[in-house]
């Protein structure tokens, strides 16, 4: 099942499709440009799995997403960083407000951007190497900007009622129940 979000901006046309719904606690969606065969999240994981210096970190991150969030806990606040504009970076790093202390994967080199819809539904985007103190100064700047853009469109579609959150079934649905939405 997938949704098509047709827009007029840089990330013009993309599909919102299920990336992993096998976990007991959380369904993950991803975005895919309609002229591409590969989702943005798969592009991220394949890219860093192919680089020996990042392979271990990539597998740590994938295991964290699929098992810790997807299977064991869901998208609880404790496992998410603070929002960086419209999206949040995974894995959790520990730079949180005082009452939400976390400490996972210190000095982790990779960031995968995500949009938490509910505690049981998360959209994953692309990401990159966090090689600067901020997203703006890191080489993943473009991926972060693109993720924010995707997130804005999805958020607006939800607020406008084009996408319905079906919490009982842990899925996103078109307003008329169909699999495809054109905005």
């Amino acid at each position: 099942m997938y949704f098509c979000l047709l827009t007029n901006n840089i990330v013009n046309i993309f599909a919102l499709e299920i990336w992993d719904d096998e976990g007991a606690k959380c369904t993950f969606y991803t975005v895919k440009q309609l002229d591409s065969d590969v989702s943005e999240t798969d592009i991220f994981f394949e890219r860093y799995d192919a680089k020996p210096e990042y392979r271990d970190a990539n597998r740590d991150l994938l295991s964290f997403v699929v098992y810790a969030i997807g299977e064991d806990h869901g998208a609880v606040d404790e496992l998410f960083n603070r929002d960086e504009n419209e999206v949040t970076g995974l894995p959790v790093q520990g730079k949180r407000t005082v009452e939400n202390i976390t400490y996972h994967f210190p000095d982790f080199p990779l960031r995968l951007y995500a949009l938490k819809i509910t505690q049981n539904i998360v959209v994953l985007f692309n990401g990159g190497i966090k090689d600067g103190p901020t997203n703006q100064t890191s080489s993943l700047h473009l991926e972060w900007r693109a993720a924010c853009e995707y997130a804005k469109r999805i958020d607006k579609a939800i607020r406008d009622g084009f996408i319905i959150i079906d919490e009982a079934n842990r899925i996103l649905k078109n307003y008329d129940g169909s699999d495809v939405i054109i905005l």
Partner: protein
Amino acid sequence: MRSKVAQRILSETPEETKIFARLYADIVVRINQLLKENKLSQKDLAESMDKRPSEINKWLTGEHNLTLRTLAKLQAELGEPIINVPQRKPMHTGEGIKGSMTVYRNTVNTDVTYTKVWKRSKVKSKTTLANVS
């Protein structure tokens, strides 16, 4: 359905990597639950443990990995188990020891609300048994 790319990479991922990710997340969630339950901030924790805030910050913001000693200190301060090591218990029968069982004293589950006082669950009213004469 799971992404084929994710499936492939996970199939090549060492089991220890998967175990680490799950265990560490369990600990993160557990400690956060206990901090919230105890209404403790990082600063409060530092004061109550008679430590410098910077030292607590190092434990809690990932500047170094949590050690067993650190976990023990946190557990002592927070007053409840953070991690649990299962134990093997022998199973006895009338004819002597017949195997063993693994005993788990607690588990981490985000669906569970921890309360200090154990409350007995409400018992459903019993159905009256039919009179048998």
